[in-house]
């Protein structure tokens, strides 16, 4: 059992197979994350699918300036967008992959991963072959 604290509350559900928490607007459109402030009253939280497809991706090769607060020394990482069919396309870290593995449209699975020694964050990884 990990003692890592989520990087922020309310990003994903607290269950055995956690899911991102999106927000459904009155017009049916789903957004992520759930907005704060007065806008929160206008949406309905909704747990999102754990499975989607890769919409786009890139590498982060240089260390971002503040407010980036990742572990030292800096390790390059992958980020991308994953389309959760019929729901929303979310921006996310991509783990367990190298750039040569990634193909737009490939199946991706949600996972909670360590961010640093104290905090966890969300990510997607390529769906493992059965």
């Amino acid at each position, binding site marked *: 059992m990990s003692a890592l604290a989520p*990087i*922020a509350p309310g*990003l994903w559900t607290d269950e055995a197979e956690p899911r991102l928490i*999106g927000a459904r607007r009155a017009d049916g*459109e*789903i*957004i*992520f*994350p759930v907005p*704060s402030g007065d806008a929160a009253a206008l949406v309905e939280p909704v747990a999102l699918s754990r499975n989607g497809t890769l*919409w*786009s*991706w*890139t*590498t*982060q*090769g*240089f260390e*971002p*300036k*503040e*407010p*980036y*607060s*990742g572990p030292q020394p800096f390790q390059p*990482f992958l*980020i*991308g*967008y994953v*389309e*959760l*069919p*019929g*729901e*929303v*396309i*979310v*921006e996310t*870290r991509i783990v367990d992959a190298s*750039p040569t593995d990634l193909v*737009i449209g490939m199946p991706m699975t949600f996972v909670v991963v360590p*961010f640093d020694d104290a905090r966890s*964050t969300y990510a997607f990884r390529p769906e493992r072959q059965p």
Partner: protein
Amino acid sequence: MNDDVYIIGAGIHPFGRTDGRSGRDQGVYAVREALGDAGIEWGDVEFAYGGSAAAGSADIMVNELGLTSVPFINVANGCATGGSALTAARNAIAAGACDIALAVGFDKHPRGAFNAKPSDYGLPEWYGETGMMLTTQFFALKIQRYMAIHGISRRTLGLVAEKAFRNGTLCDHAWRRSPVDLDTILNAPMVNDPLTKYMFCSPAEGAVALVLASGKKVRELGSDAVRIASVAFRTRPEGSFEVFAPSISVNGGGKPTEVASRAAFEMAGIGPEDVSVAQLQDTESGAEIMHMAENGFCSDGEQEQWLAEGWSEIGGKMPINTDGGCLACGEPIGASGLRQVYENTVQLRGRGGERQVPNGPKVGYSHVYGAPGLSAVAILER
């Protein structure tokens, strides 16, 4: 009311790095250049608009320019600061509120990528903390998908950068004045895949000022004038994919550039085929490629042929970014959009020297794009 509004003076402070001169002082320099070009005095300016993103308020410039009691409105509108100043100055003259107005934009950024504050954009802190709030990532993510869908090659990304640096060697206000060959561009360190370090512009310094006038004033002064056929500034429509987006709609949507471009063409009563020279937002190589299509100059995927055939070179059928664009000039946010209009003014007046577009260009098109999803288009006619 004034039906037609003209640019009668254009001034620029060279872009790049000028140690020991503040962003605002670079702005004052550009204003004096523009006034001299227009053949007027500061006291003749009846209304002024200007600003910067990171170098302070523009109206303080009256300390140097003269305390003439001129109404001076500070513009703080991120990447659209220059475009907003131009829109406001044009509208003031069109409304008949004055006959001579000034638009000025300047900036001075520290080295390295921009570091935006999440709260300034209505975003949660974790978005920045986890390293997802970088403008460079957005452009890489957008072109990565675009290349996969529309068959754009990495080589074409490289050709855009090679053209920019080649044009920069011919331009006295450019920052990067040395050519960079295609192999060096393609094999340079990757910043955000597929974009290498030579495919990205850098935050920089610089200033641009434009003097605008009514037709009546142009006739009175006998100015070397360029007509502003249209200015359209638009924020993002529903469902668009923009910089700093933790999520995007699965339903797709419009693009601020497409909306602004259509409005500008409609207002000017012309189409993309009538444009003789264009300055398109090239934050990185892919942005120029995508903006060629979003502004209506080609269909998605045709850019591959455009770059291979050299159609966007100076001397090509529709030259793009004749001064080297953001890639060669750098991006001082407050000045960058006005630099494009400055360059079109230079080209339409036939004062481009070594980088002059041949055969007397008649229509110049400029397009700036920025956070959090906005575009401003200006069309100039000779």
